[in-house]
């Protein structure tokens, strides 16, 4: 059976008599989707953790080889479905690099606004579900109430709540008007006091601190060694953010700081995301203030996209890490090969190392702080 294969094939220490193999199986309230974690426990302490993924593997990289370039944008939404805008952006940047095209300035500003709003929405989901993992059931409701306002803004502008298909190769799909900008500013004003409220409710709650401070410590070397990215890497003290290292879409002319943790504990990663929400609000406010007029789609990207044979790699700072798309074209109407460098897939692998020696309750705290979305892990 599946578990015997895992036990037999893993070259773990020979099984002491008192260990117990427990399945934090595909259906578990706190695995954020369909991840199976094979834990070998002795008492409450974990001897070995073997994450088993693939329960949501839909083979989108294979499907993209039979769809035209613009049809693939739809499939990109379903990877990290908590922040679909950044997946659209990464794919569109890769195609634009292949074609050597550049989105018009208004489209670039709109892309920045939408991606940062999506980062706030995605971190609000994290805030809610992480609260539930640690046992506080109420922040989930408050975080989703705020997220509803962002979804209203998205629905007003691009029609969808979760899978937008808004950022396309060559520009963006729809424009925003005065009403939308006024509502967006109103939301940003509304969000600031809410974030301070969450800090009081959850971030500095003594029990929450007891459960997350110096739990699941990841040193800077281990984080780089395991190839983590995004808030997980910055939580360990490595200040690497793609928006600062390789700016795209005009990020260089917005000023924002990159929050960096100190010890790499669950709380550092959690608080990096909370601070990132504040920084994203600053970026959106700045982008709204300097929204240039102009058309939304560049003429360089034709309706039927047939880029010359070649390869292009574009990567963006998605909410969960450094999302990279390698787009390979053989000159045909369909992509020859698209590879997704999925940050969640790589961030998840570190569970094998940092869960050893922890307690069962810490598994939930550590896995929640890594913040994985199974759509992007399995693609």
């Amino acid at each position, binding site marked *: 059976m599946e578990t015997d294969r895992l036990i037999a094939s893993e070259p773990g220490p020979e099984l002491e008599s008192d260990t117990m193999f427990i399945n934090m199986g595909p259906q578990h309230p706190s695995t954020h989707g369909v991840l199976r974690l094979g834990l070998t426990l002795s008492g409450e302490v974990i001897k070995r953790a073997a994450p088993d993924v693939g329960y949501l593997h839909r083979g989108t990289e294979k499907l993209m080889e039979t769809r035209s370039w613009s049809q693939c944008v739809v499939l990109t939404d379903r990877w990290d479905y908590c922040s679909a805008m950044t997946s659209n952006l990464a794919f569109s940047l890769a195609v634009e690099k292949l074609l050597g095209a550049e989105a018009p300035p208004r489209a670039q500003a709109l892309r920045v606004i939408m991606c940062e709003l999506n980062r706030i929405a995605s971190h609000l989901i994290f805030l809610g579900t992480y609260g539930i993992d640690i046992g506080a059931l109420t922040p989930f409701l408050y975080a989703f109430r705020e997220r509803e306002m962002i*979804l209203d803004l998205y629905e007003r502008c691009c029609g969808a709540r979760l899978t937008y298909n808004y950022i396309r190769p060559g520009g963006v799909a729809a424009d925003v008007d005065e009403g939308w900008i006024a509502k967006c500013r109103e939301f940003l004003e509304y969000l600031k006091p809410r974030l301070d409220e969450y800090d009081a409710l959850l971030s500095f709650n003594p029990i929450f601190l007891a459960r997350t401070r110096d739990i699941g410590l990841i040193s800077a070397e281990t984080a780089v060694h395991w190839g983590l990215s995004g808030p997980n890497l910055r939580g360990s003290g490595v200040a690497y953010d793609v928006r600062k290292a390789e700016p795209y879409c005009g990020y260089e002319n917005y000023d924002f700081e990159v929050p960096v943790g100190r010890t790499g504990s669950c709380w550092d990663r959690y608080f990096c995301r909370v601070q990132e929400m504040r920084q994203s609000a600053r970026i959106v406010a700045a982008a709204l203030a300097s929204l240039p007029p102009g058309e939304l789609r560049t003429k360089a990207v034709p309706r039927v996209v047939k880029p010359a044979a070649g390869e292009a790699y574009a990567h963006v700072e998605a909410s969960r890490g450094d999302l990279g798309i390698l787009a390979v074209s053989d000159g045909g109407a369909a992509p020859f090969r698209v590879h997704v460098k999925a940050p969640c897939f790589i961030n998840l692998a570190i569970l094998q190392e940092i869960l050893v020696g922890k307690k069962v309750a810490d598994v939930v705290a550590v896995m929640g702080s890594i913040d994985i979305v199974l759509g992007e892990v399995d693609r």
Partner: protein
Amino acid sequence: MGIILDKAPMIARPIPGGQVLLTTADYFIDLGRKYSVWPLTFGLACCAIEMMVAYAGRFDFDRLGVIPRPSPRQADLLLIAGTVTKKMAGPIQEIYHQMPEPRFVISMGSCANCGGPYFDSYSVVKGVDRIIPVDVYIPGCPPRPEALIYGVLELQKKITRMKLAKGGGATHQQEKGSRDLAGSNA
């Protein structure tokens, strides 16, 4: 309790007032089941986020008495929210069979209905009704939370049509197609 309920129709038929007793019993039993549909905390893909939003403050599922339960033993609704892959098909069938009768299945989103955007993928089951019987299908990718609530309302209508005489009891039933309520669509 389940056994008695299944024998109730046979006992009630010969008694003169038995039919009236049976229908009123049906009414109250279905009313109880209708207002307390407890789904399983079980999300697969993007539809799971819309399901979570349906539980959250704005589209409050709790208004209908719908509370997510972590264990399949206490759940009577399996809400398939997301893409059913072949690797996940086995566990889904196992969870379905762990749930006590009377159990219902809602297939949420076009991935669960018919494979959706992955209609030609090598690793996706083209629709969850290939592996378990489904009571309500909700179109959309992902469906809006209002559509999910409308789906649960449809399920509630279906529950109110359940009759003790037609398998409305709670004894374990062999593998069956989608709940055969055709006879009760009066």
